[in-house]
């Protein structure tokens, strides 16, 4: 009770007077406390996020730049400052450019069909179905299968020998595909894994956006004689523009960092004998933890970061343009 302690020395003679004075002071103190409560609480509540994000997210990302300017070994630690030598070295490596190409190829093979198929599935799910929830849950099952498990399963499905896909091709009278040695074929197989896991998820996002479109727009289109296909292309898709942009950008950010599926596409995990499917994140791993060169690994991480920003931006402009054209037709 510090309040009473402070009140007493002021020498109040009458008991009553002292009492009233004391309670006034108490209210004042509690008001002051409450003001601090109002002022400080919000900052207190948001601080765990900002502190932890700063330490585990932002700082490492920025410090990557510092590491990339040094000789830096996994075990030896920080060496001397070497300027842009790591970048020079990395940019001169055929494996770096190979990884850039592989990453872009797998990204394109997965993101474009992913968005298109998700839109189509969403359109089907948007019909007035019986057992809606059942179908919606059905398309989401792959989402709970870990990418590593997906990778292992598809690695077997796409096995060069005795793989189901090649057996089916043989049944159709076609030659087997060398999924684990041909570069484009391996990209196709890996892209299939990504698509398998994310199409249903994205379809549900599109479905939600479709249901937010006012129904009278479709009624007007029906009265104007537009077929359902025409309605889908000329009404649904343009009106989903913000959602398509959202999905395209999130799949860019995720897709360009792909690691899990190609990592388990063979035993060694380095991306094939000639690095046919080594992606940039796998290359970062090989430099950093395979060759123990943190400086070079950081240089690649920064380059990949720039690439992601650039492509996300390009993606944004492109998607907006496509959606705009759809709207104008």
């Amino acid at each position, binding site marked *: 009770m510090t309040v009473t302690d402070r009140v007493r020395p002021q020498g109040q003679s009458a008991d009553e007077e002292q009492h009233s004075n004391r309670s006034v002071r108490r209210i004042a103190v509690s008001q002051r406390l409450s003001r601090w409560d109002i002022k400080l609480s919000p900052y207190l509540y948001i601080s765990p996020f900002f502190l932890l994000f700063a330490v585990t997210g932002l700082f490492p990302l920025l410090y990557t730049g510092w590491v990339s300017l040094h000789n830096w070994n996994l075990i030896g630690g920080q060496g001397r400052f070497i300027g842009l030598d790591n970048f020079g070295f990395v940019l001169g490596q055929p494996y770096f450019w190979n990884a850039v190409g592989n990453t872009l190829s797998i990204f394109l093979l997965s993101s474009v069909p992913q968005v298109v198929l998700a839109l189509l599935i969403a359109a089907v799910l948007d019909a007035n179905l019986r057992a809606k929830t059942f179908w919606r849950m059905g398309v989401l099952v792959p989402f709970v299968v*870990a990418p590593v498990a997906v990778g292992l399963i598809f690695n077997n499905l796409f096995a060069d020998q005795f793989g189901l896909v090649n057996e089916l091709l043989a049944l159709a009278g076609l030659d087997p595909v060398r999924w684990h040695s041909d570069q484009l074929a391996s990209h196709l197989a890996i892209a299939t894994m990504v698509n398998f896991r994310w199409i249903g998820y994205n379809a549900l996002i599109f479905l939600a956006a479709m249901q937010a479109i006012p129904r009278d727009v479709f009624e007007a289109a029906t009265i104007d004689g537009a077929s359902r296909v025409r309605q889908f292309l000329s009404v649904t898709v343009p009106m989903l523009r913000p959602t398509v942009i959202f999905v395209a950008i999130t799949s860019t950010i995720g897709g360009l960092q792909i690691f899990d599926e190609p990592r388990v596409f063979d035993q060694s995990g380095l991306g094939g004998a000639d690095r046919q499917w080594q992606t940039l994140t796998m290359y970062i791993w090989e430099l950093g933890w395979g060759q123990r060169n943190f400086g070079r690994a950081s240089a690649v991480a920064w380059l990949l970061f720039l690439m992601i920003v650039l492509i996300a931006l390009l993606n944004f402009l492109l998607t907006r343009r496509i959606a705009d054209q759809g709207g104008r037709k």
Partner: protein
Amino acid sequence: MSSIPMIRQTAGEGAAAAAAKRLNRPARRRPTHGRGRGTGGVRRPGPLTYGALGAVLLASLFPLYWSFLVGSHDSTALSRGIPLLPGGNFLANAAKVFDSIPFWKAMGNSLLVSTVTAGSVVAFSTLAGFAFAKLRFRGSKGLLVFVIATMAVPTQLGVVPLFIVMAKLGWTGSLWAVIIPGAVTAFGVFWMTQYLRDALPDELIEAVRMDGASMIQAFWYVGFPAARPAAAMLALFTFVATWTNFFWPFIVLDPSNPTLPVALQLLQAAHFVDYSVVLAGAVLATIPLLLLFIAAGRQLVSGIMQGAVKG
């Protein structure tokens, strides 16, 4: 309806027929049951639609079935031709999985890491979301924009310094190295802010404040209960994301003390790979999340759909 004879008299037979048609069409299509959300109005879709959906469903489930199929035969079954029905070898293969990787330890680790991460993300996100959605403070707008911007930052690219930090702390190989970097997410803060903004009336906070509750009491007695549905979904998504996460745990954890995905890929790292064992392991590692999906798949679906509309 009464106007149709009048149209016939004034504008002729054809116009009356057209008018009748126009009037009747909506009447015929008026919903008798169902809620009429489909693009095609309230019309029930035909077998073609269900056929297409059936094919999609088959494609979603087939790889898992294939995994079980191969996992229930022996190592040479595939070379003898594609099996159509499961064999009786699953338990034997499962036993080999338990022999070759620390499966149960990995399962326990995954359970621990995912639960703690989900709890921490929900707690910190709800707290921050409460502040952003309901409390007035200097810089709140700018800070929220910062949070949203960080959602798009590929923090995975900071692995090298993160590893250096963990090594300095002596945490490499420990589960803390996986838990702490996942303990907050920008998405979580954004999600809870969006939800609480609509779900929690300002009057309610004012009322408990008038009754003399402190800020943290207001959060605990009014804010958190209001946030519960969104918090449950956030917990679910964080759990799944943490359970399936591979890249960072693979870098920072030892093969002797792994999470499930890290342990699972070890099955394939041996010299001789028996795919019946590998795929039996893939099935075993997926079962916990399939159980979760059966229990809470409905919430996952509505979580994704709500997130799409708000985000």
